[in-house]
């Protein structure tokens, strides 16, 4: 009986890690996407102080959740996202709006791609 309980605990832990991990990853990516969209929206308003503040907020969010993403994903998958996030603040401070928008969209695309690849579907499973 002890063995069965151990086995059930193992399976439940695995299921919990898989399900919780997926939803946590998804919500983290969505938060980051929202924050990046905010940077893009603010940068088009020509108010540099607001753009820098939004970029700083975005960088802070990345610092909080980047490590979590590294736990769930292969590190090579998030290398480019990490590099992009680090350059956002620099572009905002240098008032390089075109580059800033470009890097934000690239980052959004990468994060959306991560959500797509982690979502269970026939394509991702098979």
């Amino acid at each position, binding site marked *: 009986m002890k*063995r069965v309980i*151990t*086995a059930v605990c*193992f*399976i439940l832990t*695995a299921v919990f*890690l898989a399900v919780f991990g997926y939803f946590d990853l998804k919500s983290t990516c969505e938060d980051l996407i929202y924050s990046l969209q905010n940077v893009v929206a603010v940068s088009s308003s020509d108010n540099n102080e607001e753009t820098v503040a939004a970029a700083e907020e975005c960088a802070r969010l990345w610092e909080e959740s980047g490590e979590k993403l590294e736990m769930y994903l292969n590190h090579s998958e998030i290398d480019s996202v990490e590099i992009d996030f680090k350059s956002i603040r620099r572009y905002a401070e240098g008032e390089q709006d075109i580059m800033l928008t470009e890097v934000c969209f690239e980052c959004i695309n990468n994060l959306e791609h991560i959500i797509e690849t982690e979502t269970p579907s026939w394509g991702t499973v098979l």
Partner: protein
Amino acid sequence: MIFNSETAKHNIGDFMLISFLRAIILYVVVLVVMRILGKRQIGELQPAELVVTILLSEILVIPMQDTSLALIDTIIPVLLLVGFEIIISVICLKSVRFRSLLQGNSLIVIRNGILDQGQLKRLRFTTDDLLEALRKKDVFDISTVQYAIVETDGTLSVMLKAEYEPVKIKDMNITAEENAFPSVVISDGKIIQSDFKECGMSYPKLQKIIKKNKIEVKKVMLMTLDKNGKITLIKKDEDK
């Protein structure tokens, strides 16, 4: 871009530390998993157990070498495989039909000295395989075999014809002293107290034996004692 050798050193150090920590985590996972899975040897594994063992070794070795892989992607399949393996083994214990479905059945390949060629074909066993397995059981002549059975783990069990069975003490109508298990009392100069009860040994009794043999405990390589009082004492090699 300026190459900073200090940063590079730091990164290499970090990388090695990551490998070190990951190896420890995975080693602990393997130890726990193998302890839970049980004590069977590779040759005794049932097909399902063999599959799980191979899968586990493959799953665990890759993230140990590649630090870019997320550990959670390894831990989840390991937990699932071990969980399923235990549950399947419990179902196999309870249900004969399930056991037979999953592990197969033992098959008789030699009956009364005659080969069952149909069963050999079914098992995809060549006569060479069979003869080799028989030789490993010290049987060189098929005609001496009453039954040979291929077990579910692939091993061969052999029952010889009565006239070829070795003579046993009972057949000769003589009485023999009962065998007793020799317990280790001293190993490599250290007293092993855990088996004292098994062989009826006590500390004063051991001291007496040691004194009688004029030797110190630390100079004893191995000392065993069985219930019949038979002592085996091997001294340590002085030169080494």
